């Protein structure tokens, strides 16, 4: 076996449960030359704001950043689809020398004239600040001329990590909130934060809440609309999924508008049900809500349970590895894998916090490897050593699994299948079942007995 060494500077971001005192480092800038799976500040902002479907998203910089994020996510819209277009100022050498402000102005105004968006987000990429563009000034001018909100997203790639990009996106969203008329928002109304409608997940979740008698004012940002965001301050509760990306916004809304927030996850039966019950409990002044919730959860669970049990039988004792963006999703995936009979041998995230990793440690059996901001070699080392049968990750993790003959489930934003909610759990279980039990692995070198 080819030896894979862990870089000394990375050792304190890897922990095997039960082996040493738990003292994990995280929240660090990625180590140069480590081949981090993380992207950059721009990526963090882009993923959060991407699903807002009636806004123009203009990437201010050379062509790469816009080209690589064109139609990248499976975030669906029930109406306009401006978010699926890729707009770039396509800065050239001349612009780098003389500045890109005029080009930004021309491009942005032309886009607004062509597409009549409800708002525009302008993402600054690495070189924008360095060449000295006063983006805010250009945007103020355009906002005045075109009479729509035009928002700067300060997402220069090097100015922090993906988490700082989430923050920049939250700051931009926060500027929209409060601009709309929230007088018609009812008493039992929530916002859903950190749900991006991948494969229609927001619709599934919204439907559950609707059945409970809860109104959803705005989903941020799945199937997002500017107008809904603008009146979201009328909601009584913010329900935050993907807490890494959106807690910042929830906190700002709590401070300014007095809206409390709860953290939830919609992945797996257990967490999904908790997300619904927690909301029902918040509105405990109305006992009908809790009753409806109970009935609905019962029905939904009964609909998927028999098949989940048969899948559990087939997968019992198989081993899973998890490497995802946010740690909160990892919590749910551990529970979801356990529910279908699988053991977790590796779990990690790109952006987990100290608190998150402490929770992960408590959730995992001894001998589980926990990693922060890992790289392909580390992930390969542990999925091989721990004899994983399944790897859950994103596109960049897929070939790592496949090359070693290990099944894979895409739980990132490029997937097209909803994995949230009860039906999503069934989709997830089926996908895991099909990949883990596929006959193709009989030909993989690791399974061929000489």
């Amino acid at each position: 076996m080819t030896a894979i060494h862990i870089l000394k500077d990375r050792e304190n971001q890897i922990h095997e449960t039960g082996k040493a005192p738990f003292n994990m480092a995280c929240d660090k800038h990625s180590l140069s030359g480590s081949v981090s799976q993380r992207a950059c500040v721009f990526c963090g902002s882009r993923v959060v704001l991407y699903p807002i479907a009636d806004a123009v998203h203009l990437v201010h910089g050379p062509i790469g950043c816009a080209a690589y994020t064109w139609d990248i996510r499976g975030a669906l819209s029930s109406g306009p689809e401006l978010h699926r277009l890729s707009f770039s100022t396509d800065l050239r050498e001349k612009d780098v020398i003389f500045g890109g402000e005029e080009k930004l102005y021309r491009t942005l105004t032309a886009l607004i004239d062509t597409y009549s968006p409800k708002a525009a987000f302008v993402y600054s990429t690495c070189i924008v600040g360095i060449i000295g563009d006063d983006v805010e000034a250009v945007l103020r001018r355009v906002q005045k001329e075109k009479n729509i909100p035009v928002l700067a997203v300060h997402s220069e790639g090097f100015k922090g990590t993906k988490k700082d990009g989430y923050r920049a996106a939250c700051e931009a969203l926060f500027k929209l909130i409060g601009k709309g008329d929230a007088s018609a928002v009812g008493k039992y109304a929530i916002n859903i934060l950190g749900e991006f409608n991948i494969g229609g997940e927001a619709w599934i979740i919204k439907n559950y809440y609707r059945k409970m008698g809860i109104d959803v004012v705005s989903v941020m940002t799945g199937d997002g609309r500017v107008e809904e965001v603008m009146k979201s301050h009328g909601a009584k509760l913010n329900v935050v999924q993907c807490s890494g990306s959106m807690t910042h916004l929830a906190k700002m809304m709590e401070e300014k508008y007095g809206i409390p927030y709860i953290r939830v996850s919609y992945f797996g039966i257990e967490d999904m049900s908790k997300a619904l019950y927690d909301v029902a409990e918040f509105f405990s002044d109305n006992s009908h809500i809790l009753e409806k919730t109970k009935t609905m959860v019962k029905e939904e669970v009964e609909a998927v349970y028999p098949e989940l049990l048969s899948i559990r039988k087939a997968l019992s004792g198989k081993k899973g590895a998890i490497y995802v963006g946010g740690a909160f999703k990892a919590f749910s995936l551990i529970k979801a894998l356990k529910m279908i009979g699988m053991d977790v041998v590796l779990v990690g995230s790109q952006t987990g916090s100290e608190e998150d990793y402490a929770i992960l440690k408590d959730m995992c059996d001894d001998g589980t490897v926990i990693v922060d901001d890992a790289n392909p070699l580390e992930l390969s080392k542990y999925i091989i050593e721990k004899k994983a049968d399944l790897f859950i990750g994103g596109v960049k993790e897929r070939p790592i699994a496949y090359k070693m003959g290990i099944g894979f489930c895409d739980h990132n934003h490029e997937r097209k299948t909803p994995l949230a909610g009860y039906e999503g759990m069934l989709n997830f279980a089926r996908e895991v079942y099909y990949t883990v039990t596929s006959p193709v692995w009989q030909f993989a070198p690791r399974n061929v007995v000489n």
Partner: protein
Amino acid sequence: MMKTNSDSNEIGIKNACKLCTPLGASLAFKGIKGAIPFLHGSQGCATYIRRYLISHYKEPMDIASSNFSEETAVFGGGANLKLGLSNITKQYEPVLIGVATTCLSETIGDDVPMFLDEYKKYDDGGQKSHLVHVSTASYRGTHRNGYNDAVKATVASLLNKVGKTVTDERQVNLFPGMVSPKDIRYLKEILSDFNLRFIVLPDYSETLDGGLWSEYQKIPDGGTDVSDILKMGNSSLSIEFGRILANEDSAGKFLESTFDVPCKSMGLPVGVKETDIFFKSLEGLAGMDTPEKYQGERARLIDSYVDGHKYVAGKKAFVFGDEELVVGLASFLSEIGIKPVLCATGGQSGLLKKKIMEVNPLFSEPDCIVSEGIDFVGIMDFAKMLKPDILLGSSKGYHIAREMELPLVRVGFPIHDRVGGSRVSHLGYRGAQELFDRIANALIETKQASSDVGYSYI
């Protein structure tokens, strides 16, 4: 780096028909044995490019980054670069590290050659990986330029040390350009069958299209051996594909001017005519006729042209993507009776029209429009106006195909919505055969599907 006056635009881009230079450089470095690409800039550049390439090649794609922070951008990237090189060396033990810059490191004015010299002197810990530097500011040129510049930088920096020892009359260098792994395998097969010693650079035919592993490979097997690259000065000829590249600075021209290795530039061998030029050159060099195997391929190809010509006759095609492939496809289409009514690229070499005219004797405006610096929204506008019958290009043309209900024959890079992007053939008689069959069948299928009758013979 190429500079032309046409490389500018006054207004931004909607749905780009091009990618950035560091992507091209990363891809080229993946074709060198034991090499790892290293992008000097923000973490996102490496990660986005990895993801984009993986979605096409479906293979591991490790690309390192020096991961700039705010301090790096203020004080310069030297320390980060050296730390990154040291870490990548510890992890991967690479034979070669291909360091490509990004818009960020270029804009702050990092002196990368100086950093690399310092690293080699003081910091490399005796590992002695070859370090190749290529300047790839993403605001200058496209992925095509990044690719070609990385190939040139590799040859120029490695051969500066060694130079020429002898002239090997039977050794040829081939610079294939940005073609598929399957294309590269085929080119190697051809060169073998001509009994030539050959050095193909880059060669990602295995690194980006290999089998499953029994042991983990930090850097996937395959690629052009550095020891072979060092012998390129001894070759009796370099063949360089790309009619646009013919007018630009290149690896082949470097070898010609520095080591007197003649450089023969020719178009990407797509279709009979362009492939004939390639085979003629090999015949001359090898002193033998084209092997029967390829004569047979050529004969069957022409037989199929005849059998299928009426299915394709007079059809209007849009061709879009990398300039070199667009030129090759225009040549191919014009020899089978399809009119390339729009030849489009996001690149701006300023040469596309001239090159299309060279390969398409039937070229006349405005029946054939050549558009440089165009984006996919622009191509869609043309589609509504010109109403083509078929699209040829990357999978990024799918939105147009869907809206206009047109067949899209996926070629080149990227192919993100189908399996087998690595295994698309474009080159030689065999590649033309695959292209012809796919195009004819796509047109037949469209006709069959749109017929009320439901013919079972076509």
